[in-house]
């Protein structure tokens, strides 16, 4: 199956509106069909609290019936709730100009459900925090990191409110992941009409400068309008300062170039960027 559609995950949290708008923009720009996905995560009921520890005639059968009834009731409600969410998301996206909007519901873990869509999806749209989070806290939801690690398809992460980005910055660190990300951007129509900044944080050496120039040329050749910048200092601080100074409205970066063990010790730049960014982030793997 070819990867053509855009899949947006919504869960009814405060951020779902932004996810919806972001997805609609991406769908319009890429002229790709948009599918909204609502996942009913498995949470199984615990039967009425009963610590009596006594089992009598037909305990097993009664227990099964009881657990089934509880699950059934809860999941019926969740299904209806999800259907309503999807319906309103659809209408919102359609009025924002998205093409062919579809919606689906699935049972199971989020990552497991989303992975099933991977072979037909060219871009996932997710929100930074799920249900149970407010919008203010600079934290990423429990699923975001797992999704970014588990999927090999570009992910667009919505934060707060959405407005059509007027510019973007591409965080480049010279790694293989970053090169791949850059090439993807060069060949994608998503950011074609928008002015961009190619930003590298590193020592001001001739080698780094030459590299940056090469990459800029690569983007320019494909008709992108980009400026390059070489900054030195702490990666996160530099990128955040740059974002503020140039009023950047979309961040593009590769993700998780290092092993998990290294990140456990020194911390991951990707996770920090995802947590701190106040504008949407496009993550390329």
């Amino acid at each position, binding site marked *: 199956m070819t990867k053509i559609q855009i899949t947006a995950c919504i869960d009814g949290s405060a951020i779902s509106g932004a996810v919806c708008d972001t997805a609609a923009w991406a769908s319009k720009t890429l002229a790709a069909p948009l599918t909204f996905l609502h996942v009913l995560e498995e949470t*199984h009921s*615990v039967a009425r609290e009963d*610590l*009596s*520890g006594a089992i009598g005639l*037909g305990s*097993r059968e009664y227990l099964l019936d009881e657990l089934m009834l509880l699950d059934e009731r809860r999941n019926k409600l969740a299904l209806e709730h999800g259907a309503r969410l999807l319906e309103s998301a659809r209408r919102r996206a359609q009025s924002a100009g998205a093409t062919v909007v579809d919606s689906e519901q699935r049972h199971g873990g989020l990552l497991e459900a989303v992975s099933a869509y991977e072979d037909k999806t060219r871009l996932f749209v997710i929100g930074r925090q799920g249900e149970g989070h407010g919008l203010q806290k600079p934290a990423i939801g429990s699923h975001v990191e797992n999704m970014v690690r588990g999927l090999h398809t570009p992910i667009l992460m919505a934060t707060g409110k959405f407005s059509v980005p007027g510019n973007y910055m591409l965080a480049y660190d010279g790694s293989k992941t970053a090169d791949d990300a850059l090439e993807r951007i060069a060949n994608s129509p998503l950011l074609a009409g928008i002015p961009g900044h190619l930003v590298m944080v590193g020592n001001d050496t001739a080698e780094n400068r030459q590299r940056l120039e090469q990459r800029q040329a690569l983007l320019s050749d494909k008709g992108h309008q980009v400026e390059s910048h070489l900054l030195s200092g702490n990666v996160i601080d530099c990128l955040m300062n740059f974002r503020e100074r140039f009023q950047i409205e979309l961040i593009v970066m590769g993700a998780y170039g290092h092993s998990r063990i290294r990140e456990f010790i020194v911390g991951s730049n990707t996770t920090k960027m995802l947590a701190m960014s106040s504008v949407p982030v496009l993550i390329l793997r």
Partner: protein
Amino acid sequence: MIERIKQDWFSNIRGDLLAGTVVALALVPEAIAFSIIAGVDPKVGLYASFSIAVIIAFVGGRPGMISAATGAMALLMVTLVKEHGLEYLLAATLLTGVIQIAAGFLKLGNLMRFVSRSVVTGFVNALAILIFMAQLPELTDVTWHVYAMTAAGLGIIYLFPLIPAIGKTVPSPLVCIVVLTAVAMGLGLDIRTVGDMGELPDTLPVFLWPDVPLNLTTLQIILPYSVGLAAVGLLESMMTATIVDELTDTKSDKNRECKGQGIANIGAGLLGGMAGCAMIGQSIINVKSGGRKRLSTLTAGVFLLILVVFLDEWLTRIPMAALVAVMIMVSIGTFSWDSLRNLTKYPLSTNIVMVSTVAVVVATHNLALGVFVGVLLAALFFANKIGRFMVVKNEITEEGLRHYRVVGQVFFASADSFMASFDFNEAVDRVTIDLHQAHFWDITSVAALDKVVIKFRRGGTDVSIVGMNEATRTVVDRFGVHDKPEELEKLMAGS
């Protein structure tokens, strides 16, 4: 990975801790009772329950399932303990573990698909009956006090949960044990107590290599027991896993569970415990009390040990009547009462399978034998049913030519009726046998066809067979219909 561990262990902390505690309280009397069945000191069963529960919490394939010393296993050890003693039991336990790990690597857990539902029901019922029968020695040749105590115990267990407010917050088997112990001590009743049955643990278990000579004679003694123990242990564990899967609507890793059971038994053997496996009754209690994840199993094991080591003084005073009451509850809870009602609804063959499984187990005290007989019967009944999906049609198509068309499944169970469908006494010049829509599943069916041909030839009839290649493709063992949907379609159309 970290997410997975979190999910498996800490996603239901409150429920798991509470349920684990309830299970631990129920495990103590059971472990003592099963030690008594096996003929060893209660501490052997208690150490086994502790180590198996703790180890399986980490290595098992079914979170939320409780494993410990069990009655099914204890029943198999009786003669070994009687004839050779405890050390040989520990050695047999180690070997059981090794066999189970091997079974896990050989993916024998997948063989569970051959164990039909009626065999599982028979197994469960037989187990319940055996647990109940094991209590009878405590109830024969005793004073009326014991009967009164047992009846009172059962009354407490089943009526206490009905008391509003506190009824569902305290495990009623525990209430039963505490009350009966207090009554027995208060009245100074001269009835048997746990202390009379053997030694209880007073220390943490210590690492011990079984004191047996490492030679072929030892192996000859323990191997038959170990094979039986391994088989019964895996069977009960797989069945319990299926029950827990069903109750919680989640999946389990059966082969990992096989290996886990093996590792747990090796651990038990090295810590002075007897072999054990998953427990149906306790797992139901765990799920009912809200336990779902690995933490519940771990809590049960750890809390059990704490209880046992610190309360050994008190444990010895528990009257046997209280234990008997708890064990009767376990056997009632394990028995599938629905299966009795279903006897009237289900087909006769299904009922025969279930009842035979129960009968064989009760007669031999060996659950593995019962399951073997059950599976065998179920397979025979099934073969018999499928054998009826065969018909041979015939017609005279032209002068002196009879055309036989075979449709359906030809194999050992239908080979005779296949032979009988041909009229060898009819004197015709030529016969054609059309096999396009038939499937020859084994060598018996091919031989039957050969016989048919020979018989016709002897009568002077020319025989030609068409469609032989298609028909015999199924004889090949690796008949690959799975990866060829169009083959499967043809197969279904032919039958």
